[in-house]
C-alpha cells in the first residue's frame, strides 16, 4: 500500500511505472469488486440472484488471474467454472424453484458472525509475517511469455505433476459414475402424480 502511494507521489511518469501503477490500481478495483460480489452472494434473498453474483465474482477473479500472468487459468475459470459449473447451478435452481428466505437475527447467526470475524482477523495476521521474497523460481513472466501460458502449464503438468493429473481424471470418472448411480436415470413412464 505504501509503495503504491510512494510511486504515485513520486510522479515518475515513465512507461513502466505508469503501467505498474495502472496495473496495481486495476488489481485494487477488481479485487474490491470481487469482495462486493461475494457479499452479494450470501446476502441475497433469492438463490437466482446469489448465483448471478457468484458468476460476477468468478469473472472478476478471472480478470485478476489475467492480471497476474495466469492466462490459461483465466480462460479455464471462465469456460469451466463460470461457464459449465454455474450453468449447472442455474439449471438446478430453475428445477427446484427458488423460495425467498428471510434472514433471521438469531443467536446462532450472531455466533457465526463473531467466529467468522475472528477467522478473518486471524487470516489477516498472516500479513504480519513479513515480506514475501521471490524464490528462485524459473517461471518468470518473461520465460512464460515466450512459450505461452498454456504450453508452460502443459509442460509442467505432464512432467512434474503427472500423478495428480491422472488422479484428477480418475476423480472425474468416479464422479460421473456416482452421478449416474445417484440420480437413478431410469425410464419411468409418465404417471399422474398427486400434489403433496
Amino acid at each position, binding site marked *: 500500500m505504501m509503495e503504491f502511494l510512494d510511486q504515485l507521489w513520486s510522479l515518475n511518469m515513465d512507461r513502466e511505472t505508469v503501467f505498474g501503477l495502472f496495473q*496495481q490500481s486495476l488489481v485494487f478495483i477488481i479485487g474490491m469488486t470481487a469482495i462486493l460480489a461475494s457479499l452479494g452472494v450470501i446476502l441475497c434473498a433469492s438463490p437466482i440472484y446469489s448465483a448471478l453474483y457468484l458468476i460476477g465474482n468468478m469473472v472478476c477473479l478471472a480478470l485478476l488471474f489475467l492480471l497476474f500472468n495466469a492466462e490459461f487459468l483465466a480462460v479455464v475459470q471462465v469456460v469451466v467454472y463460470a461457464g459449465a459449473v454455474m450453468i449447472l447451478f442455474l439449471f438446478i435452481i430453475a428445477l427446484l424453484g427458488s423460495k425467498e428466505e428471510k434472514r433471521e437475527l438469531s443467536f446462532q447467526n450472531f455466533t457465526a458472525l463473531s467466529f467468522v470475524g475472528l477467522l478473518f482477523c486471524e487470516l489477516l495476521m498472516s500479513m504480519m509475517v513479513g515480506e514475501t521474497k521471490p524464490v528462485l523460481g524459473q517461471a518468470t513472466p518473461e520465460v512464460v511469455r515466450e512459450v505461452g501460458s498454456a504450453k508452460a502449464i502443459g509442460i509442467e503438468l505432464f512432467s512434474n505433476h503427472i500423478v495428480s*493429473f491422472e488422479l484428477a481424471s480418475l476423480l472425474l470418472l468416479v464422479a460421473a459414475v456416482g452421478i449416474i448411480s445417484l440420480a437413478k436415470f431410469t425410464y419411468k413412464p409418465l404417471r399422474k402424480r398427486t400434489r403433496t
Partner: protein
Amino acid sequence: MGSEFVLFVSAAIFSIGALGFVIRKNPLVMFMSVELMLNAVNFLLIGYSSFLNSLDGQIFALIIMTVAAAEVVVGLAIILTIFRTRHELDVDRINTLKG
C-alpha cells in the same frame, strides 16, 4: 502492494464464504458459498505463484478446479435426490440423523 492485497482479498472472500455457509438455510446457496471459498483459495494460489515465479500454484489451482467441478456435480445430485424425496429446501428440516 501486490502480495498483501492478494492475501487480503483472499481472506475476505474466504470468510464471506464461510459466513454464507453457516448463515443460509437454502442448500443451494450454501453450496455456492463453498464455491466462493474454493475460488478464494484459487486466487491466493495463483497470486502467490506469480510472486514466487513458479508454476506450481497454477497447477494446484487447476487441480482444485477439477475437484470442485466434480464435487459440485455430485453435491447437486444429492440435493436433487433429497428434494425429490422430501420436497424440502430447508437444511434445518433435514435432521433425521440427530441424537
